[in-house]
């Protein structure tokens, strides 16, 4: 994969709106999960809700895109000088040479859920009052981002469950390597909806309090929502030391639709592929940001997979205790977390974990520590046996 500079990056989640808020939440160990107060959701759970997005409207010409997912995407696009950074990239490359690659698992399906709830009992059951193609449809997110940013390059929607946001980085790298674009706006957005909350509820995977990944007594996932975006460009001379996407790798489990292979073969293959594409050995990684959803099975599998490659030499943790599992946005959100870790020299410890699972053999961090962090490996795993790992760090 070509050397790619991350020229700009931003994220909005329950941990905070924009990178400054995320930084202070990470350093201050202030999580954003709260008891679920949305109507019609499973009882007794906690969520990572981004209230600030709920009052946001897309610009008038794009009003038909209005839905929970678009509102959160719009909020995130406005942070951290992201709009200006993309404008500058368009000036450098031309709008047709900037691709949009977006990951989402459920797009704006929450709009369909609302319309469904409004259906009259005696009527013909028709759904009304919204634009399906610009909300529910998977392509709604990249189409919105492309129109909002005035881009004219390739437009791709990726939906590989919980690896979608990470795959967007990998796949944008492929488009740039093939010569279809010089830059790409990548990322993901996923928002709270009944389908995912009740879905994980049906699998009995939802935690009763805020999720505590890697804890000995962890009891499941808290679902969150997030939008996160990055601007990737081919790195040039003089970019040494700048933030970059150093490598990316993927694999499939080929094992089961919703359970990972217990020994983590797929996870190991994705991490190894990411390291190979970056030309790095495991010893050159300073921190592993785990997928770490907080379920018994995922965290145990991931511990085995990480230990297989890294032993106990590299600190690793999940930051989902701050944000919840933001599903198709999590890979992009955690790329922004990785960027902060590199820039601030921070290894964040899992939040709310008194005692990491004593059966784990990887080096699980449960307190923050200051350290030089030049390279972060970030994991994402999803239903359908989808695995993706990114290496984010300082360009050599």
């Amino acid at each position: 994969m070509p050397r790619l500079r991350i020229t700009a990056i931003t994220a909005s989640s329950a941990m905070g709106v924009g990178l400054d808020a995320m930084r202070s939440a990470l350093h201050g160990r202030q999580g954003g999960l709260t008891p679920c107060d949305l109507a019609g959701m499973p009882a007794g759970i906690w969520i990572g809700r981004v209230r600030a997005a709920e009052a946001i409207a897309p610009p008038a010409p794009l009003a038909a895109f209005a839905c929970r997912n678009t509102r959160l995407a719009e909020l995130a696009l406005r942070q951290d000088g992201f709009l200006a950074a993309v404008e500058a990239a368009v000036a450098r490359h031309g709008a047709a040479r900037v691709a949009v690659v977006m990951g989402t698992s459920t797009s704006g399906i929450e709009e369909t859920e609302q319309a469904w709830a409004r259906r009259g009992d005696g009527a013909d059951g028709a759904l009304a009052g919204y634009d399906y193609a610009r909300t529910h449809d998977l392509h709604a997110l990249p189409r919105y981002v492309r129109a909002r940013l005035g881009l004219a390059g390739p437009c791709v929607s990726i939906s590989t469950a919980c690896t979608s946001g990470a795959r967007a980085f990998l796949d944008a790298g492929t488009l740039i390597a093939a010569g279809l674009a010089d830059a790409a706006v990548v990322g993901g957005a996923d928002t709270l909806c009944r389908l995912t909350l009740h879905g994980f509820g049906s699998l009995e995977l939802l935690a009763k309090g805020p999720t505590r990944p890697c804890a000995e007594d962890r009891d499941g996932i808290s679902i969150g929502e997030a939008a996160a975006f990055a601007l990737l460009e081919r790195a040039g001379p003089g970019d040494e030391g700048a933030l970059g996407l150093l490598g990316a790798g993927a694999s499939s489990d080929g094992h089961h639709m919703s359970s990972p292979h217990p020994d983590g073969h797929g996870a190991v293959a994705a991490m190894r592929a990411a390291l190979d594409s970056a030309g790095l050995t495991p010893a050159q990684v300073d921190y592993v940001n785990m997928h770490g959803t907080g379920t018994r099975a995922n965290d145990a599998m991931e511990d085995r997979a990480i230990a297989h490659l890294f032993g106990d030499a590299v600190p690793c943790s999940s930051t989902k205790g701050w944000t919840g599992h933001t599903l198709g946005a999590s890979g992009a959100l955690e790329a922004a977390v990785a960027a902060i870790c590199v820039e601030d020299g921070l290894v964040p410890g899992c939040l709310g974990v008194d005692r990491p699972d004593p059966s784990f053999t990887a080096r699980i961090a449960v307190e923050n520590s200051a350290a030089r962090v030049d390279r972060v490996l970030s994991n994402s795993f999803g239903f359908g046996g989808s695995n993706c790992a990114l290496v984010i760090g300082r360009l050599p």
Partner: protein
Amino acid sequence: MTLSVGIAGIGLLAPGLAGWAQAAPVLAGRVPHESAPLTPPAPTLLPATERRRTGPSVRLALAVAIEAVQDSGLVPEELDTVFASSNGEGQVITSILEALHTPDGAISPTQFHNSVHNAAAGYWGIAVGSSRPSVSLGGHDGVFATGLLHAAAQVVAGGQAVLFVAHDVPLPPPLDALRVTTEPFAMALVLVPGPGRHGSLRLAPQPGAAALPDLPGSLVALHVANPVARALPVLAALAGGRAAALDVPMLEDARLHLDVVP
């Protein structure tokens, strides 16, 4: 920017187009197209438990995938894959939405894990025992062009073969009124670096919408009945073994220009 890839294998299932061997003379205009109801075949590659859980969109995807790979002579578990579908498994999504709006709101765990857009890719991985990378795309009305361009980019960037599968089926009511898809359609191509036994494609994204293509008889109606059927002009050129310059729709303001080189 133009990408070049070879076509090593083709799979196709649509009403009146039952596999490439039967469909090629129809698409070439040598035999009339007669639309016939299509029953997505049960995927025999999967263990019985998994097989029962697959819906029509996944079944079509698996059928054309295996047809294309067998046609190519390549090893299925060694291929990276790109799956593209605008609607996914609408039957599962609709049934979950229905259940969510019943008094207890409980949904089936199996339906939930089958609701992910990469269900077809997941079942393909299980069916052939593949650990190769796989990506699943949406794309609305431009799903065929978007997926094909993406798969071609992977071939060019990675220098290895990629299995590209595009599949869509009609959504059940009430979503069918909001997203009109009236016929099932699935196709697959095994794309390779350099020329393949079915020839080559040169691909270039261009600004502006694509014009409606010239197709024989009832294929015109099929072309607009399913977003994946936007592949028909390309398949017709391949079936006829003739060079063609085609535009397929990608977005309201963008199209994919294709040169088919036999």
